[in-house]
Protein backbone atom coordinates (compact mmCIF):
# COMPACT_ATOMS: atom_id res chain seq x y z
CA UNK A 1 0.00 0.00 0.00
CA UNK A 2 1.30 3.35 -0.96
CA UNK A 3 0.30 6.65 0.58
CA UNK A 4 -0.21 9.55 -1.79
CA UNK A 5 2.89 11.74 -1.94
CA UNK A 6 1.65 14.77 -0.04
CA UNK A 7 -0.05 12.84 2.71
CA UNK A 8 3.14 11.37 4.12
CA UNK A 9 4.64 14.71 4.90
CA UNK A 10 1.39 16.01 6.39
CA UNK A 11 1.20 13.03 8.73
CA UNK A 12 4.82 13.61 9.66
CA UNK A 13 4.20 17.26 10.40
CA UNK A 14 1.17 16.51 12.56
CA UNK A 15 3.11 13.92 14.52
CA UNK A 16 5.98 16.34 15.06
CA UNK A 17 3.62 19.06 16.16
CA UNK A 18 1.91 16.71 18.63
CA UNK A 19 5.25 15.70 20.02
CA UNK A 20 6.27 19.33 20.45
CA UNK A 21 3.07 20.34 22.19
CA UNK A 22 3.52 17.50 24.64
CA UNK A 23 7.12 18.32 25.41
CA UNK A 24 6.73 22.13 25.52
CA UNK A 25 4.97 22.43 28.89
CA UNK A 26 7.68 20.30 30.49
CA UNK A 27 10.40 22.51 29.09
CA UNK A 28 8.51 25.51 30.40
CA UNK A 29 8.49 24.41 33.98
CA UNK A 30 12.00 23.07 33.85
CA UNK A 31 13.72 26.12 32.42
CA UNK A 32 11.91 29.16 31.23
CA UNK A 33 9.38 29.80 33.98
CA UNK A 34 12.06 30.23 36.59
CA UNK A 35 14.43 32.23 34.45
CA UNK A 36 12.16 34.41 32.33
CA UNK A 37 12.40 38.04 33.42
CA UNK A 38 10.68 41.08 31.91
CA UNK A 39 12.03 44.61 32.30
CA UNK A 40 10.03 47.63 31.24
CA UNK A 41 10.46 51.35 31.63
CA UNK A 42 12.74 54.28 30.95
CA UNK A 43 13.77 54.97 27.38
CA UNK A 44 16.95 56.61 28.65
CA UNK A 45 17.98 53.34 30.22
CA UNK A 46 16.97 50.98 27.41
CA UNK A 47 20.43 50.86 25.88
CA UNK A 48 22.10 50.30 29.25
CA UNK A 49 19.61 47.69 30.44
CA UNK A 50 19.65 45.72 27.20
CA UNK A 51 23.46 45.68 27.23
CA UNK A 52 23.29 44.29 30.74
CA UNK A 53 20.67 41.74 29.70
CA UNK A 54 22.74 40.53 26.74
CA UNK A 55 25.84 40.13 28.88
CA UNK A 56 23.85 38.39 31.61
CA UNK A 57 22.21 35.96 29.18
CA UNK A 58 25.62 35.10 27.71
CA UNK A 59 26.78 33.94 31.11
CA UNK A 60 23.60 32.41 32.48
CA UNK A 61 22.36 29.59 30.37
CA UNK A 62 18.60 29.36 30.13
CA UNK A 63 18.02 32.90 31.41
CA UNK A 64 15.72 34.88 29.15
CA UNK A 65 15.41 38.60 29.76
CA UNK A 66 13.14 40.77 27.68
CA UNK A 67 13.70 44.53 27.76
CA UNK A 68 11.19 47.09 26.55
CA UNK A 69 11.08 50.88 26.79
CA UNK A 70 8.03 53.09 26.84
CA UNK A 71 9.10 55.58 29.49
CA UNK A 72 9.52 55.50 33.26
CA UNK A 73 5.82 56.16 33.84
CA UNK A 74 4.81 53.23 31.67
CA UNK A 75 7.28 50.98 33.48
CA UNK A 76 6.01 51.95 36.91
CA UNK A 77 2.40 51.42 35.84
CA UNK A 78 3.35 47.97 34.48
CA UNK A 79 4.98 47.02 37.77
CA UNK A 80 1.89 48.15 39.71
CA UNK A 81 -0.27 46.04 37.42
CA UNK A 82 2.04 43.08 37.82
CA UNK A 83 2.87 42.87 34.11
CA UNK A 84 6.61 43.33 34.54
CA UNK A 85 9.15 41.87 36.96
CA UNK A 86 11.50 44.82 36.98
CA UNK A 87 10.72 48.45 36.24
CA UNK A 88 13.58 50.61 35.00
CA UNK A 89 13.04 54.26 35.91
CA UNK A 90 15.12 57.38 35.34
CA UNK A 91 13.10 59.15 38.05
CA UNK A 92 11.89 58.13 41.47
CA UNK A 93 8.31 57.07 42.04
CA UNK A 94 5.92 59.91 42.76
CA UNK A 95 3.68 60.10 45.85
CA UNK A 96 0.55 59.18 43.90
CA UNK A 97 2.30 56.13 42.50
CA UNK A 98 3.40 55.10 45.99
CA UNK A 99 -0.18 55.51 47.22
CA UNK A 100 -1.43 53.40 44.33
CA UNK A 101 1.14 50.72 45.17
CA UNK A 102 -0.10 50.63 48.73
CA UNK A 103 -3.67 50.21 47.52
CA UNK A 104 -2.62 47.30 45.33
CA UNK A 105 -0.61 45.77 48.18
CA UNK A 106 2.63 46.13 46.27
CA UNK A 107 5.84 47.06 48.04
CA UNK A 108 8.21 48.65 45.55
CA UNK A 109 11.86 48.14 46.38
CA UNK A 110 14.26 50.61 44.83
CA UNK A 111 17.74 49.72 43.59
CA UNK A 112 19.95 52.55 42.34
CA UNK A 113 21.85 50.81 39.54
CA UNK A 114 23.65 53.75 37.90
CA UNK A 115 23.77 57.51 37.77
CA UNK A 116 23.39 59.88 34.90
CA UNK A 117 25.28 63.17 34.98
CA UNK A 118 24.84 65.78 32.28
CA UNK A 119 27.79 68.00 31.50
CA UNK A 120 27.42 71.46 30.01
CA UNK A 121 30.17 71.95 27.45
CA UNK A 122 31.67 74.98 25.70
CA UNK A 123 34.60 75.52 23.37
CA UNK A 124 38.00 75.39 25.14
CA UNK A 125 38.66 78.97 23.95
CA UNK A 126 35.67 80.31 25.83
CA UNK A 127 36.87 82.21 28.94
CA UNK A 128 33.60 81.51 30.78
CA UNK A 129 34.07 78.46 32.98
CA UNK A 130 31.38 78.73 35.65
CA UNK A 131 27.64 79.33 35.34
CA UNK A 132 24.72 79.03 37.74
CA UNK A 133 21.71 76.87 36.97
CA UNK A 134 19.69 80.08 36.61
CA UNK A 135 22.11 81.49 34.03
CA UNK A 136 22.07 78.21 32.11
CA UNK A 137 18.28 78.31 32.13
CA UNK A 138 18.31 81.84 30.71
CA UNK A 139 20.80 80.89 28.01
CA UNK A 140 18.84 77.86 26.85
CA UNK A 141 15.46 79.64 26.94
CA UNK A 142 16.91 82.52 24.93
CA UNK A 143 16.68 85.23 27.63
CA UNK A 144 20.46 85.63 27.38
CA UNK A 145 21.86 85.76 23.85
CA UNK A 146 25.30 87.25 24.41
CA UNK A 147 28.21 85.92 26.42
CA UNK A 148 28.73 89.37 28.02
CA UNK A 149 25.49 88.83 29.95
CA UNK A 150 27.20 86.08 31.91
CA UNK A 151 30.60 87.72 32.28
CA UNK A 152 32.13 86.67 28.97
CA UNK A 153 33.17 88.62 25.87
CA UNK A 154 30.74 90.44 23.57
CA UNK A 155 29.92 87.44 21.38
CA UNK A 156 26.60 85.82 20.52
CA UNK A 157 25.73 82.55 22.24
CA UNK A 158 25.25 79.60 19.86
CA UNK A 159 22.86 77.29 21.71
CA UNK A 160 23.15 73.59 20.90
CA UNK A 161 20.61 71.07 22.14
CA UNK A 162 19.64 67.47 21.51
CA UNK A 163 16.57 66.66 19.41
CA UNK A 164 13.26 66.80 21.26
CA UNK A 165 12.97 63.00 21.07
CA UNK A 166 15.91 62.62 23.45
CA UNK A 167 15.36 61.84 27.13
CA UNK A 168 18.23 64.16 27.94
CA UNK A 169 16.36 67.02 26.22
CA UNK A 170 13.44 66.56 28.57
CA UNK A 171 15.60 66.06 31.66
CA UNK A 172 17.58 69.23 30.93
CA UNK A 173 14.36 71.11 30.22
CA UNK A 174 12.87 70.00 33.50
CA UNK A 175 15.85 70.56 35.78
CA UNK A 176 17.75 73.43 34.19
CA UNK A 177 15.19 75.36 32.15
CA UNK A 178 12.59 75.14 34.91
CA UNK A 179 10.20 73.41 32.47
CA UNK A 180 10.23 76.43 30.14
CA UNK A 181 10.60 76.01 26.37
CA UNK A 182 13.99 76.02 24.68
CA UNK A 183 14.71 79.05 22.50
CA UNK A 184 13.65 78.43 18.88
CA UNK A 185 17.14 79.55 17.87
CA UNK A 186 18.61 76.48 19.57
CA UNK A 187 20.26 74.21 17.04
CA UNK A 188 18.88 70.71 17.57
CA UNK A 189 21.58 68.16 16.91
CA UNK A 190 20.74 64.60 15.86
CA UNK A 191 23.38 62.99 18.10
CA UNK A 192 25.62 63.62 21.07
CA UNK A 193 28.68 63.28 18.85
CA UNK A 194 27.36 66.11 16.67
CA UNK A 195 27.13 68.38 19.73
CA UNK A 196 30.71 67.55 20.69
CA UNK A 197 31.85 68.15 17.10
CA UNK A 198 30.05 71.50 16.82
CA UNK A 199 31.15 72.69 20.27
CA UNK A 200 34.75 71.85 19.44
CA UNK A 201 34.41 73.76 16.18
CA UNK A 202 32.41 76.86 17.13
CA UNK A 203 34.13 79.13 19.63
CA UNK A 204 30.90 80.55 21.11
CA UNK A 205 28.74 77.45 21.25
CA UNK A 206 27.27 75.86 24.36
CA UNK A 207 25.67 72.43 24.59
CA UNK A 208 24.95 69.58 26.96
CA UNK A 209 25.92 65.91 26.75
CA UNK A 210 26.05 62.86 28.99
CA UNK A 211 29.06 63.00 31.30
CA UNK A 212 30.64 59.88 29.80
CA UNK A 213 30.70 61.45 26.32
CA UNK A 214 32.13 64.74 27.62
CA UNK A 215 34.95 62.90 29.40
CA UNK A 216 35.68 60.85 26.28
CA UNK A 217 35.85 64.01 24.15
CA UNK A 218 38.90 65.10 26.17
CA UNK A 219 40.38 68.44 25.12
CA UNK A 220 37.93 69.01 22.28
CA UNK A 221 35.43 70.63 24.63
CA UNK A 222 35.49 72.27 28.05
CA UNK A 223 33.09 71.18 30.78
CA UNK A 224 31.58 74.06 32.73
CA UNK A 225 31.54 74.12 36.51
CA UNK A 226 27.95 74.55 37.62
CA UNK A 227 26.63 76.36 40.69
CA UNK A 228 23.27 75.31 42.08
CA UNK A 229 22.69 78.98 43.01
CA UNK A 230 24.68 82.19 43.53
CA UNK A 231 26.11 81.19 46.88
CA UNK A 232 26.75 77.53 46.21
CA UNK A 233 30.25 76.42 45.26
CA UNK A 234 31.05 75.82 41.59
CA UNK A 235 31.19 72.10 40.92
CA UNK A 236 32.94 70.50 37.95
CA UNK A 237 31.08 67.39 36.83
CA UNK A 238 32.98 64.18 37.44
CA UNK A 239 32.20 60.68 38.58
CA UNK A 240 32.97 61.70 42.17
CA UNK A 241 30.83 64.84 42.25
CA UNK A 242 27.92 63.07 40.58
CA UNK A 243 28.14 60.22 43.10
CA UNK A 244 28.42 62.57 46.07
CA UNK A 245 25.46 64.58 44.84
CA UNK A 246 27.43 67.85 44.75
CA UNK A 247 26.95 68.22 41.00
CA UNK A 248 23.38 69.27 40.51
CA UNK A 249 22.56 68.26 36.91
CA UNK A 250 22.49 64.56 37.70
CA UNK A 251 19.98 61.88 38.50
CA UNK A 252 20.01 58.37 39.84
CA UNK A 253 18.86 55.61 37.49
CA UNK A 254 16.96 52.93 39.34
CA UNK A 255 15.19 49.64 39.09
CA UNK A 256 12.07 48.84 41.08
CA UNK A 257 10.85 45.37 41.98
CA UNK A 258 7.76 44.26 43.84
CA UNK A 259 9.19 43.17 47.18
CA UNK A 260 12.80 42.13 47.67
CA UNK A 261 14.15 40.55 44.50
CA UNK A 262 14.59 36.79 44.49
CA UNK A 263 15.80 34.11 42.09
CA UNK A 264 16.87 35.17 38.62
CA UNK A 265 15.63 38.72 39.22
CA UNK A 266 17.98 39.06 42.18
CA UNK A 267 20.82 37.48 40.22
CA UNK A 268 20.28 40.01 37.46
CA UNK A 269 20.25 43.05 39.75
CA UNK A 270 23.31 41.73 41.57
CA UNK A 271 24.98 41.40 38.18
CA UNK A 272 24.12 45.01 37.32
CA UNK A 273 25.72 46.17 40.57
CA UNK A 274 28.76 43.91 40.21
CA UNK A 275 32.08 45.28 38.92
CA UNK A 276 31.33 43.79 35.46
CA UNK A 277 27.90 45.40 35.44
CA UNK A 278 29.28 48.75 36.53
CA UNK A 279 31.95 48.53 33.85
CA UNK A 280 29.12 48.33 31.32
CA UNK A 281 27.61 51.44 32.97
CA UNK A 282 30.79 53.37 32.25
CA UNK A 283 31.01 51.99 28.71
CA UNK A 284 27.48 53.08 27.85
CA UNK A 285 28.21 56.64 29.03
CA UNK A 286 26.72 56.70 32.51
CA UNK A 287 28.23 57.03 35.98
CA UNK A 288 28.70 53.89 38.07
CA UNK A 289 27.38 53.65 41.60
CA UNK A 290 29.86 52.86 44.38
CA UNK A 291 29.94 49.22 45.45
CA UNK A 292 27.97 48.21 48.52
CA UNK A 293 25.21 50.79 48.17
Amino acid at each position, binding site marked *: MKLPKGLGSIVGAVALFALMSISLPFMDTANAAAKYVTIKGS*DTMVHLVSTWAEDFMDNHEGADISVTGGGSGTGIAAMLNGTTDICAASRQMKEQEMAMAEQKKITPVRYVVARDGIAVVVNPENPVSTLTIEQLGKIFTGAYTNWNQVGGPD*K*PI*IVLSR*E*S*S*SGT*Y*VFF*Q*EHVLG*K*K*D*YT*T*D*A*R*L*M*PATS*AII*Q*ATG*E*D*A*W*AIGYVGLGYAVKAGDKVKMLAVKADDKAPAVVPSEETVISGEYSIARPLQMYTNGEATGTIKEFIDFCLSPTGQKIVRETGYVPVPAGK
Partner: protein
Amino acid sequence: MARARWKDKAVKVLLTGSASTAILIVALIFLFLGNEAVPFIKSPGLGELIGGRWMPVSFQKESFGLLPLITGSLLVTFLATVIAIPFGVVGAVYISEIAGRFEREFFKPFIELLAGIPSVVIGFFGLVVLSPIVKSVFGLYSGLTALTGALLLALMAIPTIISISEDAINSVPKSYKEASEALGASRLQTIWKVTVPAALSGIVAAVMLGMGRVIGETMAVMMVTGNAAVITASPFRSVRTMTATIAAEMGEVPFGSDHYRALFWVGLVLLSMTFILVLISHRVLKRYQDRQ
Protein backbone atom coordinates in the same frame (compact mmCIF):
# COMPACT_ATOMS: atom_id res chain seq x y z
CA MET B 1 -5.94 35.24 -35.89
CA ALA B 2 -8.30 35.15 -32.94
CA ARG B 3 -5.55 33.81 -30.83
CA ALA B 4 -3.25 36.69 -31.73
CA ARG B 5 -5.97 39.18 -30.81
CA TRP B 6 -6.46 37.45 -27.47
CA LYS B 7 -2.73 37.71 -26.84
CA ASP B 8 -2.82 41.39 -27.75
CA LYS B 9 -5.55 41.95 -25.24
CA ALA B 10 -3.75 40.05 -22.48
CA VAL B 11 -0.59 42.04 -22.99
CA LYS B 12 -2.58 45.26 -23.02
CA VAL B 13 -4.26 44.42 -19.72
CA LEU B 14 -0.91 43.48 -18.23
CA LEU B 15 0.69 46.76 -19.31
CA THR B 16 -2.25 48.88 -18.20
CA GLY B 17 -2.17 47.05 -14.89
CA SER B 18 1.49 47.68 -14.21
CA ALA B 19 1.20 51.29 -15.31
CA SER B 20 -1.72 51.90 -12.97
CA THR B 21 0.07 50.26 -10.05
CA ALA B 22 2.17 53.39 -9.71
CA ILE B 23 -0.98 55.54 -9.63
CA LEU B 24 -2.55 53.21 -7.10
CA ILE B 25 0.49 53.33 -4.85
CA VAL B 26 0.64 57.12 -4.90
CA ALA B 27 -3.08 57.28 -4.14
CA LEU B 28 -2.66 54.82 -1.27
CA ILE B 29 0.22 56.82 0.18
CA PHE B 30 -1.88 59.98 0.12
CA LEU B 31 -4.74 58.05 1.68
CA PHE B 32 -2.59 56.59 4.45
CA LEU B 33 -0.96 59.91 5.30
CA GLY B 34 -4.36 61.56 5.27
CA ASN B 35 -5.85 58.88 7.46
CA GLU B 36 -3.21 59.40 10.15
CA ALA B 37 -3.31 63.18 9.79
CA VAL B 38 -7.07 63.83 9.73
CA PRO B 39 -7.85 63.43 13.48
CA PHE B 40 -5.64 66.47 14.03
CA ILE B 41 -8.33 68.67 12.45
CA LYS B 42 -10.74 67.82 15.25
CA SER B 43 -8.72 68.16 18.42
CA PRO B 44 -6.00 70.81 18.19
CA GLY B 45 -7.50 72.18 14.95
CA LEU B 46 -5.96 73.10 11.62
CA GLY B 47 -5.28 76.67 12.76
CA GLU B 48 -2.53 75.22 14.92
CA LEU B 49 -0.57 74.19 11.79
CA ILE B 50 -0.47 77.71 10.34
CA GLY B 51 1.51 79.04 13.29
CA GLY B 52 5.11 80.17 13.15
CA ARG B 53 6.31 78.13 16.10
CA TRP B 54 7.30 74.46 16.08
CA MET B 55 7.72 73.31 19.68
CA PRO B 56 6.32 69.80 19.86
CA VAL B 57 7.81 68.83 23.23
CA SER B 58 6.99 71.29 25.96
CA PHE B 59 5.95 71.48 29.58
CA GLN B 60 4.07 74.71 28.79
CA LYS B 61 2.15 74.41 25.55
CA GLU B 62 2.96 72.29 22.54
CA SER B 63 2.99 74.21 19.24
CA PHE B 64 2.79 72.63 15.82
CA GLY B 65 3.23 75.58 13.45
CA LEU B 66 4.51 74.27 10.12
CA LEU B 67 5.66 77.61 8.69
CA PRO B 68 9.26 77.44 9.94
CA LEU B 69 9.61 73.92 8.51
CA ILE B 70 8.12 74.84 5.12
CA THR B 71 10.22 78.00 4.77
CA GLY B 72 13.26 76.03 5.92
CA SER B 73 12.80 73.40 3.21
CA LEU B 74 12.07 76.05 0.56
CA LEU B 75 15.13 78.12 1.45
CA VAL B 76 17.50 75.16 1.35
CA THR B 77 16.00 73.82 -1.90
CA PHE B 78 16.09 77.24 -3.60
CA LEU B 79 19.72 77.86 -2.63
CA ALA B 80 20.78 74.37 -3.65
CA THR B 81 19.12 74.71 -7.06
CA VAL B 82 20.68 78.12 -7.69
CA ILE B 83 24.10 76.70 -6.85
CA ALA B 84 23.65 73.45 -8.79
CA ILE B 85 22.29 74.83 -12.10
CA PRO B 86 25.45 76.58 -13.38
CA PHE B 87 27.72 73.71 -12.37
CA GLY B 88 25.36 71.07 -13.70
CA VAL B 89 24.57 72.69 -17.03
CA VAL B 90 28.06 73.97 -17.81
CA GLY B 91 29.45 70.60 -16.77
CA ALA B 92 27.08 68.79 -19.11
CA VAL B 93 27.92 71.14 -22.00
CA TYR B 94 31.62 70.63 -21.41
CA ILE B 95 31.40 66.86 -21.27
CA SER B 96 29.21 66.44 -24.32
CA GLU B 97 30.49 69.22 -26.58
CA ILE B 98 34.00 70.29 -25.65
CA ALA B 99 35.72 67.46 -23.84
CA GLY B 100 37.73 65.02 -25.91
CA ARG B 101 36.96 61.36 -25.89
CA PHE B 102 39.58 60.56 -23.27
CA GLU B 103 38.38 63.30 -20.93
CA ARG B 104 34.82 62.14 -21.30
CA GLU B 105 35.75 58.59 -20.42
CA PHE B 106 37.59 59.97 -17.42
CA PHE B 107 34.87 62.33 -16.12
CA LYS B 108 31.74 60.29 -16.53
CA PRO B 109 32.49 57.47 -14.07
CA PHE B 110 33.49 60.01 -11.42
CA ILE B 111 30.25 61.92 -11.80
CA GLU B 112 28.30 58.69 -11.58
CA LEU B 113 30.30 57.76 -8.50
CA LEU B 114 29.36 61.09 -6.92
CA ALA B 115 25.71 60.22 -7.40
CA GLY B 116 26.24 56.92 -5.61
CA ILE B 117 27.78 58.26 -2.40
CA PRO B 118 25.40 57.57 0.52
CA SER B 119 23.91 60.75 1.93
CA VAL B 120 25.12 59.96 5.47
CA VAL B 121 28.68 60.02 4.20
CA ILE B 122 28.07 63.32 2.44
CA GLY B 123 26.46 64.63 5.63
CA PHE B 124 29.45 63.61 7.70
CA PHE B 125 31.77 65.26 5.19
CA GLY B 126 29.61 68.38 5.50
CA LEU B 127 29.73 68.38 9.28
CA VAL B 128 33.47 67.85 9.59
CA VAL B 129 34.90 69.55 6.49
CA LEU B 130 32.42 71.87 4.80
CA SER B 131 30.82 73.54 7.80
CA PRO B 132 34.14 74.89 9.20
CA ILE B 133 34.96 76.19 5.71
CA VAL B 134 31.61 77.98 5.38
CA LYS B 135 32.12 79.41 8.85
CA SER B 136 35.53 80.88 8.13
CA VAL B 137 34.81 82.06 4.57
CA PHE B 138 31.74 84.03 5.59
CA GLY B 139 33.00 85.01 9.05
CA LEU B 140 30.14 83.33 10.90
CA TYR B 141 29.95 82.09 14.47
CA SER B 142 28.64 78.69 13.47
CA GLY B 143 28.96 76.68 10.26
CA LEU B 144 25.61 74.94 10.79
CA THR B 145 23.58 77.05 8.37
CA ALA B 146 21.07 76.78 5.53
CA LEU B 147 23.89 77.55 3.12
CA THR B 148 25.98 74.59 4.29
CA GLY B 149 23.00 72.32 3.74
CA ALA B 150 22.36 73.85 0.32
CA LEU B 151 25.97 73.32 -0.75
CA LEU B 152 25.80 69.64 0.19
CA LEU B 153 22.48 69.21 -1.56
CA ALA B 154 23.83 70.94 -4.66
CA LEU B 155 26.65 68.42 -4.60
CA MET B 156 24.05 65.66 -4.61
CA ALA B 157 21.92 67.27 -7.34
CA ILE B 158 24.78 68.03 -9.74
CA PRO B 159 25.35 64.44 -10.93
CA THR B 160 21.62 64.07 -11.70
CA ILE B 161 21.57 67.37 -13.58
CA ILE B 162 24.76 66.60 -15.50
CA SER B 163 23.86 63.13 -16.67
CA ILE B 164 20.31 63.97 -17.79
CA SER B 165 21.31 67.30 -19.38
CA GLU B 166 24.12 65.55 -21.18
CA ASP B 167 21.71 63.05 -22.66
CA ALA B 168 19.51 65.93 -23.81
CA ILE B 169 22.42 67.81 -25.39
CA ASN B 170 23.67 64.66 -27.09
CA SER B 171 20.29 64.04 -28.64
CA VAL B 172 20.28 67.41 -30.44
CA PRO B 173 20.49 66.47 -34.14
CA LYS B 174 23.94 66.90 -35.65
CA SER B 175 22.43 68.79 -38.59
CA TYR B 176 21.57 71.75 -36.27
CA LYS B 177 25.21 72.19 -35.34
CA GLU B 178 26.41 71.71 -38.90
CA ALA B 179 23.93 74.30 -40.14
CA SER B 180 25.04 76.75 -37.50
CA GLU B 181 28.71 76.25 -38.28
CA ALA B 182 28.00 76.51 -42.01
CA LEU B 183 26.53 79.96 -41.36
CA GLY B 184 29.86 81.00 -39.89
CA ALA B 185 29.03 80.72 -36.16
CA SER B 186 31.90 79.89 -33.86
CA ARG B 187 31.88 76.78 -31.70
CA LEU B 188 30.92 78.76 -28.59
CA GLN B 189 28.14 80.57 -30.45
CA THR B 190 26.82 77.27 -31.72
CA ILE B 191 26.76 75.82 -28.21
CA TRP B 192 24.96 78.71 -26.55
CA LYS B 193 22.67 79.83 -29.38
CA VAL B 194 21.79 76.51 -30.99
CA THR B 195 22.63 73.38 -29.03
CA VAL B 196 21.65 74.44 -25.52
CA PRO B 197 18.34 76.09 -26.53
CA ALA B 198 17.46 72.99 -28.53
CA ALA B 199 18.16 70.78 -25.51
CA LEU B 200 16.43 73.14 -23.09
CA SER B 201 13.45 70.93 -22.36
CA GLY B 202 15.75 68.11 -21.28
CA ILE B 203 17.84 70.50 -19.21
CA VAL B 204 14.76 71.83 -17.45
CA ALA B 205 13.66 68.28 -16.73
CA ALA B 206 17.14 67.53 -15.35
CA VAL B 207 16.98 70.54 -13.02
CA MET B 208 13.51 69.56 -11.83
CA LEU B 209 14.64 66.02 -11.09
CA GLY B 210 17.63 67.42 -9.24
CA MET B 211 15.26 69.59 -7.19
CA GLY B 212 13.19 66.51 -6.45
CA ARG B 213 16.21 64.82 -4.97
CA VAL B 214 17.10 67.96 -3.00
CA ILE B 215 13.71 68.56 -1.38
CA GLY B 216 13.36 64.97 -0.26
CA GLU B 217 16.90 64.55 1.02
CA THR B 218 17.06 64.03 4.77
CA MET B 219 20.23 62.76 6.33
CA ALA B 220 22.75 65.24 4.93
CA VAL B 221 20.62 68.30 5.73
CA MET B 222 19.83 67.03 9.18
CA MET B 223 23.51 66.84 10.01
CA VAL B 224 24.55 70.31 8.84
CA THR B 225 21.66 72.79 8.94
CA GLY B 226 21.47 72.98 12.74
CA ASN B 227 17.72 72.21 12.71
CA ALA B 228 16.55 75.34 14.54
CA ALA B 229 12.91 75.91 13.69
CA VAL B 230 13.04 79.60 12.79
CA ILE B 231 11.49 81.50 9.89
CA THR B 232 14.26 83.20 7.98
CA ALA B 233 15.40 84.08 4.47
CA SER B 234 19.04 84.37 5.47
CA PRO B 235 21.31 81.63 4.13
CA PHE B 236 23.59 82.19 7.13
CA ARG B 237 21.08 81.12 9.77
CA SER B 238 20.10 77.67 10.93
CA VAL B 239 16.90 76.19 9.49
CA ARG B 240 14.87 73.06 10.13
CA THR B 241 13.60 71.22 7.07
CA MET B 242 10.47 69.10 6.90
CA THR B 243 12.41 65.93 6.12
CA ALA B 244 14.77 66.39 9.08
CA THR B 245 11.82 67.03 11.37
CA ILE B 246 10.12 63.79 10.41
CA ALA B 247 13.33 61.79 10.65
CA ALA B 248 14.36 63.21 14.01
CA GLU B 249 11.01 63.08 15.75
CA MET B 250 9.06 60.15 14.34
CA GLY B 251 11.12 57.53 16.16
CA GLU B 252 10.18 58.57 19.69
CA VAL B 253 6.80 60.19 19.25
CA PRO B 254 3.98 58.62 21.30
CA PHE B 255 1.70 56.76 18.89
CA GLY B 256 -1.55 58.58 18.18
CA SER B 257 -0.56 61.80 19.99
CA ASP B 258 -1.09 65.29 18.56
CA HIS B 259 2.63 65.40 17.81
CA TYR B 260 2.35 62.14 15.85
CA ARG B 261 -0.56 63.53 13.80
CA ALA B 262 1.30 66.77 13.21
CA LEU B 263 4.26 64.84 11.77
CA PHE B 264 1.89 63.23 9.29
CA TRP B 265 0.77 66.69 8.27
CA VAL B 266 4.40 67.54 7.65
CA GLY B 267 4.63 64.47 5.43
CA LEU B 268 1.44 65.41 3.61
CA VAL B 269 2.70 68.93 2.92
CA LEU B 270 6.05 67.56 1.73
CA LEU B 271 4.39 65.08 -0.61
CA SER B 272 2.08 67.76 -2.00
CA MET B 273 5.05 70.01 -2.68
CA THR B 274 6.92 67.32 -4.63
CA PHE B 275 3.68 66.55 -6.43
CA ILE B 276 3.28 70.17 -7.49
CA LEU B 277 6.94 70.31 -8.52
CA VAL B 278 6.45 67.34 -10.82
CA LEU B 279 3.25 68.83 -12.27
CA ILE B 280 5.01 72.12 -13.03
CA SER B 281 7.96 70.37 -14.63
CA HIS B 282 5.55 68.45 -16.86
CA ARG B 283 3.92 71.67 -17.99
CA VAL B 284 7.27 73.30 -18.66
CA LEU B 285 8.50 70.28 -20.58
CA LYS B 286 5.36 70.19 -22.66
CA ARG B 287 5.56 73.86 -23.55
CA TYR B 288 9.14 73.50 -24.79
CA GLN B 289 8.31 70.37 -26.74
CA ASP B 290 5.35 72.10 -28.40
CA ARG B 291 7.50 75.00 -29.42
CA GLN B 292 10.03 72.78 -31.16
